[in-house]
């Protein structure tokens, strides 16, 4: 409860920050820039001369310079240290690279606002860990090309070529990754976080296995089986909301589960012919709406749909009102199993395959992330006095030795090598006071610009490993629109406007169709309205961006 309230407070605070930013832009900007600027100036002033020295290419580097880095501190680590440099990981990194780093950590909840303020104040740190793709809300508007031409960040082609041999090797070895981390015109702009291929799937539908066993039902795979199962949950298990999924801030977290059964998606996707399409205007999308409308009316799908936030869902799952949902590996299965461990030892959540219409079908789509994770990726800014040093420091993370530190921490302290594989020590794994998540946050860097190691596994339950296997079996790779398309600046502006209007309208109608406020007959009008808002132009823009992307 308290946590939820805090989250809401943060939301309010964010809202207020946003509003005041509009009203007081000038004031905040000038105030902040002065505050930050002085500190930085002082730091860099001391070390300005070091640039000419030979820093070498072996670690630790031969330097006395301090560089500055803007990055969010892992929310678990915050409870231990306010500065990454003070954590065991930060100290080890400084020792290994020979570079002292002055970290500025934005508040995780307000990183967007603080990022914007930093850009506006023109007082950039040497390197900034942030989503530079221009795709997610709050990332640099206009994307990397614009950020480079605006003179915010450096084009990294020469820098990577000369000073980052480890990253260069990784990019050369993985064409798919290489395509993702450069722009249409072939410019590199970040030191990317490279996900491990086993860590790309972490979300999907899940169900109470103990209930299924009680009712002697199999794990449902088709829509028809789901309906039977949910009915049984309702009638025999007394579940008030057999299926419930969170809906907050206009995001229905069902994503493409259930929708995918009808060979469409909740947003833009690529069809079998390689054409970009907008799912919510497909004829088969109507079938999905009809299904959920029926489930809602029959009480199989949460009666408080659209009002169910994380706290409400927790409550429903933990009190047995809900038997199935769509959620995450650790935030869902892990967290809820953990919470019920003592109260109800039989409580058992397992991942189910993405539902399909027909038996034996491969699910059309599902959650699948890309190996390039843009959020925790670092760009070098134009303010960097010594880009070479920054690049060399960043490149350490892609070396074999560096990868071990960033992934597992300090050998002998947080992990030991057993049969050639790293294993967490009891300090991390079986710590009496702190959870594994908390410990790895101060001994390693859970997210950041390096390649995540496939041997790293934070799953604590066999159900989690099993769920990943089940959720991975989809055609998602074929049907997911790559997140790294780069429309031109002009196109971006147009696209942003259309998508904003369309998704706003679509979301409202979506909820109304499901709760029965809008007759299904008006589906055609709804499609016509979205067309009128210019969806075809948006599809066209994505299509051409996709073609450019494929040609990279």
């Amino acid at each position: 409860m308290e946590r939820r309230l805090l989250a809401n407070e943060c939301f309010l605070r964010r809202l207020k920050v946003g509003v005041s930013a509009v009203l007081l832009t000038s004031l905040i900007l000038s105030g902040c820039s002065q505050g930050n600027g002085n500190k930085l100036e002082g730091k860099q002033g001391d070390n300005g001369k070091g640039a000419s020295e030979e820093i070498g290419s072996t670690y630790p580097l031969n330097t006395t310079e301090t560089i500055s880095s803007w990055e969010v501190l892992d929310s678990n680590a915050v409870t231990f240290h306010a500065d990454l440099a003070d954590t065991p990981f930060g100290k080890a990194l400084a020792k290994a690279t020979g570079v002292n780093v002055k970290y500025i950590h934005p508040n995780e909840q307000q990183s967007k606002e603080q990022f914007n303020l930093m850009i506006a104040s023109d007082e950039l740190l040497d390197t900034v860990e942030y989503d530079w793709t221009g795709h997610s809300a709050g990332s640099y508007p206009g994307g990397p090309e614009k950020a480079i031409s605006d003179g915010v960040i450096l084009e990294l082609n020469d820098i990577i070529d000369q000073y980052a041999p480890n990253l260069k090797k990784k990019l050369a070895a993985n064409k798919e990754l290489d395509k993702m981390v450069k722009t249409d015109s072939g410019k590199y702009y970040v030191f990317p976080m490279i996900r491990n291929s086993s860590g790309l799937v972490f979300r999907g539908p899940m169900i109470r296995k103990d209930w299924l066993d009680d009712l002697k039902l199999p794990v449902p795979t088709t829509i028809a089986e789901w309906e039977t199962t949910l009915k049984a949950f309702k009638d025999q298990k007394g579940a008030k909301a057999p299926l419930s999924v969170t809906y907050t801030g206009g995001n229905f977290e069902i994503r493409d589960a259930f929708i995918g059964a009808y060979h469409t998606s909740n947003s833009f996707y690529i069809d079998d012919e390689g054409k970009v399409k907008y799912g919510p205007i497909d004829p088969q999308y109507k079938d999905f709406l009809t299904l959920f409308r029926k489930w809602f009316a029959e009480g199989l799908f949460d009666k408080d749909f659209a009002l169910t936030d994380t706290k409400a869902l927790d409550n429903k799952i933990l009190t047995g009102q809900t038997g199935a949902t769509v959620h995450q590996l650790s935030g869902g299965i892990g967290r809820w199993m953990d919470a019920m461990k003592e109260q109800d030892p039989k409580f058992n959540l397992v991942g189910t395959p993405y539902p399909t219409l027909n038996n034996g079908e491969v699910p059309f789509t599902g959650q699948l992330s890309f190996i390039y994770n843009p959020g925790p990726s670092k760009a070098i800014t134009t303010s960097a006095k010594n880009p070479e040093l920054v690049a060399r420091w960043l490149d350490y993370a892609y070396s074999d030795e560096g990868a071990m530190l960033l992934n597992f921490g300090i050998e002998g302290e947080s992990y030991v090598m057993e049969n050639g594989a790293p294993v967490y020590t009891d300090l991390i794994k079986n710590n009496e006071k702190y959870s594994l998540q908390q410990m790895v946050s101060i001994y390693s860097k859970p997210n950041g610009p390096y390649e995540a190691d496939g041997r790293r596994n934070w799953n604590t339950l066999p159900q989690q490993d099993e769920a990943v296997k089940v959720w991975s079996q989809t055609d998602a790779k074929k049907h997911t629109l790559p997140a790294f398309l780069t429309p031109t600046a002009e196109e971006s502006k147009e696209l942003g406007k259309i998508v904003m209007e369309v998704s706003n309208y679509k979301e409202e109608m979506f909820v109304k169709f499901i709760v029965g406020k809008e007759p299904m007959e008006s589906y055609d009008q709804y499609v016509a309205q979205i067309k009128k808002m210019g969806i075809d132009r948006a599809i066209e823009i994505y299509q051409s961006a996709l073609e450019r992307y494929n040609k990279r």
Partner: protein
Amino acid sequence: MAKHPPQLRKSTLLTASGTNTSTRWGFLKDIRKNPWLYVMLIPVLLYFTIFHYYPMYGALIAFKEFSPRLGIMGSPWVGWEHFESFFNGIYFWRVIKNTLMISFYELLFGFPAPIILALLLNEVRKTAFKRTVQTLTYMPHFISLVVVCGIIKEFTMSDGLINDLLAFFGWERVSLLLESEYFRTIFVSSGIWQNIGWGTIIYLAALAGIDQEQYEAAKIDGANRWKQMLHVTLPGIISTIIILFILEIGKLMNVGGEKIILLYNPSTYETADVISSYVYRLGLQEFNYSFSSAVGLFNSAINFTLVISANWLSRKMNNTSLW
């Protein structure tokens, strides 16, 4: 400081007209007489200059394509583009209508509520009871909005308190916040619950200022409690009521977006989506600052007009006005 007045006097005598000199002289004399009052005024003046007047130049971004990197002055001009896209948006009339409707209901039910409570409290003779009621009604004002909305959500859920009551009387359980027709009722009535106690403070203060002799005179003339209230109490606080009413009119287009955003969802947009929530959703969430400021500026312009006309009207009708 002591040296200034004589010098000033000389210069004003030379240039300004007679009346001007005397007021300026009077003003300076006043400063001399009550210097500390003026010193105490300084923070207030600074506050308004720094936080209300200085930022106004930022409203320029309503006419620009604001990019944080280029700054307010550096961003390119786009003229009325943002205003046009707001006026031409398919939801323009809906948000205007919703804003006005919610304001209107708040004015209709929310504005008289504290007056009535204050009048009732005024009639209570038992101090202990009066104090208890006052404290209890103040309380909601101090609860964070997020908590209040959390409570509202819990109560209106399909298995919440209100539905338990409805179900007891044989009604069907419905998730009240999913029904657009109930949104205004929920919003306005919870608003009254939140603010009624706080709102009475100013009226109680005004009530305390009424001359007790008037009541005695009324009693001698044979007025009962009801007549006393009608002819002594109400006229005694009418100017307070009017001034607060003018201020309320000025806020007609400003329905608090925060509470709306915490309570609404797509199925109630139809009645719940007001200017500020719309701006938040379309503007700030997407960091479209220029669009948001354009709408904000439009909003302020209307509010400004409303206050001016309400004030003018009130002055015409009963000689009470803000200025």
